[in-house]
């Protein structure tokens, strides 16, 4: 009996997936250097690393999106070569990329069954499509309005659709690139409980994350990439977060802490009696931000925090109310142009859609908002532009490979840094941040928080709208929590804790 057990333990674990010696370069730049990786059935592995470490590149290679220069892949004990994502899918390996790929004008149901239409001999019907999509959603307890066009969905919902899409394909291994970057606590927990359930059925999961808490709560093993090398591979219980971070960064992480700042007590930017139709409806929201102050605005999805951010950017025409800005009172903004003209710099939540011109190089993105001040008689002053962008690229520590690299070829976190730099470049007096550190690694995140604090110290009134509770309680001077379109409370000083913020945001 004992002997049999010992035998079993010694027998090699059958692997679901194995990658050996992956090497990948773009031009002269080595992105991955000899990376090995294994995944057992039912295992859940977190992949962490700095922005630009090569995580997304690794995920794309093992799922057939791009090809490695060297290295071997084996799925289910057999050597495989994936020439395209569809090969990987056919083998049972699904990939949910960092930047979602969907058809905006098709409905949710049509997107879910995309390429897997129910029916025979090339014929399918809308009702069959709806039924098929509805069945998967039902099975995993995820609910959507199946008939609404994909483009009308919020980012978090679109992410969930992608996940359902993979589930429909009976994937035996799912690779997710920063699946929770745009999800709040409850949504993440819901997602991971689904993934756990899949683990129980033998499905292997590999996910990329920048969130330490997730790594500890949900993974059997964590692998760390640094500069294209795998520098650690351990079960999280056998290590500490600070050890993992040290592996990632090659050094200890510094903590961000913002000291108390003297305040004028006069509001530089204030919202008065904001109301909006639609869902969520704002009901009489008023708040103010002083010069030099960072005010946090935290709420779960659908709380109305997004609406306030969009209203301040001039993106939401439904919002009515008053804005007091620089001593003047005016109606809400009718267009982004008005908001900009009033002196507000807005960092949108979706950098690819709303923030960056992906085909243009870093420099041109950074100076997008300040063409006028960098020019004389309509002609650009190249030297001034270069000086400014070189300085910002250094301050934000943007990691890039080639000098001509269009922004779309930067890693996600570095794109975010470019976006932030483009707004800070204007030396704004009012800064509205919407999810400012989405997809940014722990090291860079502290760096960005420090930069934002510096901008505030120079007198900028900053409103930070975030659904990241850790960020919400560490960066702002005070935190306003919003729930169901109303201000549920305000936290400051010692009361500003994650537990308080979450309970204010969720209890009804």
């Amino acid at each position, binding site marked *: 009996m004992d002997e049999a057990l010992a035998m079993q333990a010694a027998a090699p674990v059958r692997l679901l997936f194995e990658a050996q010696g992956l090497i990948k370069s773009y031009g002269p730049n080595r992105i991955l250097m000899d990376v090995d990786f294994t995944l057992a059935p039912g295992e859940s592995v977190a992949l962490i690393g700095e922005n630009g470490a090569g995580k997304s590149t690794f995920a794309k290679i093992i799922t057939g999106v791009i090809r490695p220069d060297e290295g071997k892949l084996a799925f289910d004990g057999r050597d495989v070569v994936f020439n395209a994502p569809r090969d990987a899918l056919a083998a049972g390996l699904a990939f949910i990329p960092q930047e979602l790929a969907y058809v905006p004008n098709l409905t949710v149901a049509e997107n879910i069954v995309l390429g897997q239409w129910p029916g025979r001999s090339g014929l399918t019907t809308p009702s069959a499509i709806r039924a098929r999509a509805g069945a998967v959603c039902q099975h995993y307890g995820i609910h959507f309005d199946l008939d609404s066009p994909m483009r009308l969905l919020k980012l978090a919902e679109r992410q969930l659709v992608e996940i359902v899409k993979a589930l429909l394909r009976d994937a035996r291994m799912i690779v997710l690139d920063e699946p929770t970057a745009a999800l709040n606590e409850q949504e993440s927990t819901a997602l991971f409980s689904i993934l756990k359930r899949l683990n129980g059925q033998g499905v292997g999961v590999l996910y990329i994350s920048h969130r330490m808490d997730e790594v500890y709560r949900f993974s059997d093993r964590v692998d760390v990439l640094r500069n294209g090398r795998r520098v650690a591979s351990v079960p999280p219980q056998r290590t500490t977060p600070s050890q993992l971070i040290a592996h990632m960064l090659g050094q200890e992480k510094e903590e961000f802490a913002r000291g108390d700042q003297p305040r004028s007590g006069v509001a530089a930017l204030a919202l008065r009696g904001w109301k909006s139709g639609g869902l969520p409806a704002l009901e009489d929201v008023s708040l103010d931000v002083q010069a030099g102050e960072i005010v946090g605005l935290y709420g779960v999805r659908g709380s109305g925090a997004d609406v306030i951010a969009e209203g301040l950017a001039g993106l939401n025409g439904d919002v009515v109310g008053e804005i007091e800005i620089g001593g003047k009172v005016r109606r809400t903004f009718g267009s*982004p142009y008005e908001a900009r003209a009033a002196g507000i710099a807005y960092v949108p939540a979706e950098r690819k859609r709303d923030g*960056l011109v992906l085909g243009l190089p870093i*420099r041109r993105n950074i*100076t997008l*908002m300040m063409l006028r001040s960098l020019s004389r008689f309509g002609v650009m002053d190249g030297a001034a532009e270069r000086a400014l962008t070189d300085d910002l*690229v250094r301050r934000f520590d943007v990691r890039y490979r080639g000098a*001509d690299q269009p922004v779309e070829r930067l890693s996600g976190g570095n794109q975010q840094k470019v976006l932030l730099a483009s707004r800070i470049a204007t030396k704004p007096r009012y800064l509205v941040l919407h999810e400012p550190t989405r997809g940014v690694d722990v090291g860079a995140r502290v760096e960005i928080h420090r930069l934002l604090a510096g901008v505030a110290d120079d007198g900028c009134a900053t409103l930070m709208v975030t659904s990241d509770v850790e960020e919400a309680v560490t960066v702002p001077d005070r935190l306003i929590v919003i729930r169901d379109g109303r201000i549920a409370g305000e936290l400051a000083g010692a009361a500003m804790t994650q537990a308080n913020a979450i309970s204010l945001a969720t209890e009804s």
Partner: protein
Amino acid sequence: MSDTTMARPTDRFRIDAQFFGLAAFYLALVVIFSLATPNFMSWSNGVNVLSNVTVLGIVALGQTLAIVSGGFDLSVSGTLPLGAVAYVLLANAAVPIPAAIVLVLALGMVVGVVNGILVNRIGISPLIATLGTLSVTGGLALTLSRGVTIPMTNFDAGFLSEFAFGRVSWYVLVLVVLCILVHVLMRYTILGRMIYAVGGNADASRLAGIRVEAVSVTVYTVCAMLAAFAGVVVSSQLLVGSANVGANVALNSVAAVILGGASLLGGVGTIGGTLVGVLILGTIANGMALMMVPSFYQQMANGAILLLAVGLGRLREKRAGR
């Protein structure tokens, strides 16, 4: 990140590689034609090519702006004959030549503003909107000319065809000057930056405080004014005003711009590239004519080269992305 390049980020576009490839292709074309026909490689034939591409070149400049801004302008094939007919009618009516040119430009401006409003305010897609104005302006040109070719009775109106020096006409010089102006506009001015940004990502540009609609209307206006001016050049060259000129110019200008490395999705493209695109089309026409190849073969050659150049570019891009 020890292996991270810390060179400064530059402004050079990835289009450069394609541009040089295209320029090399153009040189190869020149070499082939020089070997094939003895008359090709001469100063006078060079001038000839330039003269023949002037009209297309002027229109393609405007088309580059439209395409880089994420739009498209088919109506140039109507605006051009409208400009040509209007110019000859005005000149024949003893309107002073400078005033006639200004009026023609104003006419172009109206067409451009209408295009801009249709696309931006009303939200009609550029293809449909400019297809509509193409018909309207083309019809207007026919109406004004009553469907016949109007001879130019005031020969001063043909001044652009006089030689500035040697055998180089004024209109060739005008083309050169316009190229430089539009190149500077695209490369070194705020408006140019805005055009690239708007074409690359209109939503992001709007949030960055750029008046996207205003930029687009400006672009359509400049494009139509250039097309109307090209009509003046045609009339000067032919010494007649006809509603039947410029029918090919819409598709050929788009072909030249795309050949020059621009994307129909917007956000990429340069004047240098467009110029090479225009020269390639013009040189093929010229070389084949010298070789006495019937002109319908030339049309096929144009198409094949467009597909080849763009196809190769896309393939290389794909390979680089893998």
